[in-house]
């Protein structure tokens, strides 16, 4: 597999360099380093029979929870998506106009922004990730995960509104990804504090995956999006430090 990652690294460097996107090329190399790190961690886990058995057992239980928890997440997001489709729709320009005119905390649209998505693809991506994150942390009560997610998402909305006030720029953050990042940050800390409940290296694996997708990849095209994810993750971490569920 190592040679394949090297090939991807080289091809990405040549391709994005050819396009003149050197920042993206550099970030692509960072992504390949993370992929290699992930492989090394997997090999280390495989070398320990007990660790690998714990992972397999955890993955099997997660698969069961995909049915138990997954459908609830999908129903919630489908509901939010249908309401959005029936009211403001998924048209990008309409959404931009809506947020550009709302600059007050009293405007409900700011507080509903974590539920709004800019396109069907955006909505679908967040639905799948939210479902998988909740399933991955199935040993934490759903209520805690949801509370951490809402806390992180609303903090980012608050930050976005404060930013638009201070800089007089109309920058709106919409989508559930900040809340999902918050759930990963909070859940990761919880997994770190309860090593017996989780397989070895659980929080490392999840944080590598989060950092690769939500930070490095977002930085390639939209740095503001990466900043929002980091703020969400840090808020989730902070919330988990303050509000800890009982074991």
């Amino acid at each position, binding site marked *: 597999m190592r040679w*394949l990652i090297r090939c991807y690294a080289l091809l990405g460097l040549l391709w994005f360099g050819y396009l003149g996107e050197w920042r*993206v090329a550099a970030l692509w190399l960072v992504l390949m380093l993370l992929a290699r790190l992930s492989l090394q961690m997997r090999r280390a886990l495989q070398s320990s029979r007990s660790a690998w058995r714990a992972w397999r057992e955890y993955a099997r239980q997660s698969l069961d929870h995909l049915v138990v928890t997954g459908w609830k997440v999908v129903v919630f997001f489908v509901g939010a998506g249908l309401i959005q489709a029936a009211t403001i729709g998924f048209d990008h320009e309409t959404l*931009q106009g809506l947020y550009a005119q709302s600059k007050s905390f009293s405007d409900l649209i700011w507080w509903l922004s974590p539920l709004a998505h800019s396109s069907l693809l*955006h909505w679908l*991506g967040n639905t799948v990730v939210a479902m998988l994150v909740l399933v991955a942390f199935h040993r934490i009560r759903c209520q805690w995960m949801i509370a951490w997610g809402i806390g992180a998402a609303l903090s980012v909305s608050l930050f976005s509104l404060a930013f638009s006030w201070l800089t007089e720029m109309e920058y709106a953050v919409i*989508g559930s990804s900040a809340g999902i990042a918050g759930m990963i940050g909070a859940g990761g800390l919880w997994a770190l504090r309860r090593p017996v409940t989780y397989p070895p290296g659980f929080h490392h694996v999840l944080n590598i*995956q989060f950092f690769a*997708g939500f930070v490095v*990849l977002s930085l390639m*095209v939209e740095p503001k999006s990466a900043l929002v994810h980091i703020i969400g993750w840090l808020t989730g971490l902070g919330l988990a430090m303050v509000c800890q569920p009982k074991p």
Partner: protein
Amino acid sequence: MQALTQAELNEVSGGMELVDAAAMITSLSLYSPVTMAFGLPIAGALITLDLMSEN
């Protein structure tokens, strides 16, 4: 609704589209070597599409 100028509209940006799909695919692809083999090129292709659509 109050009409906005194009400059005002351009200043506002919402959640991403292809980038979010690419981010999701990248995150999931790091799970195992097999998912990496398929997921990383797909993510690269989506980034390329996004970059090209911006130009």
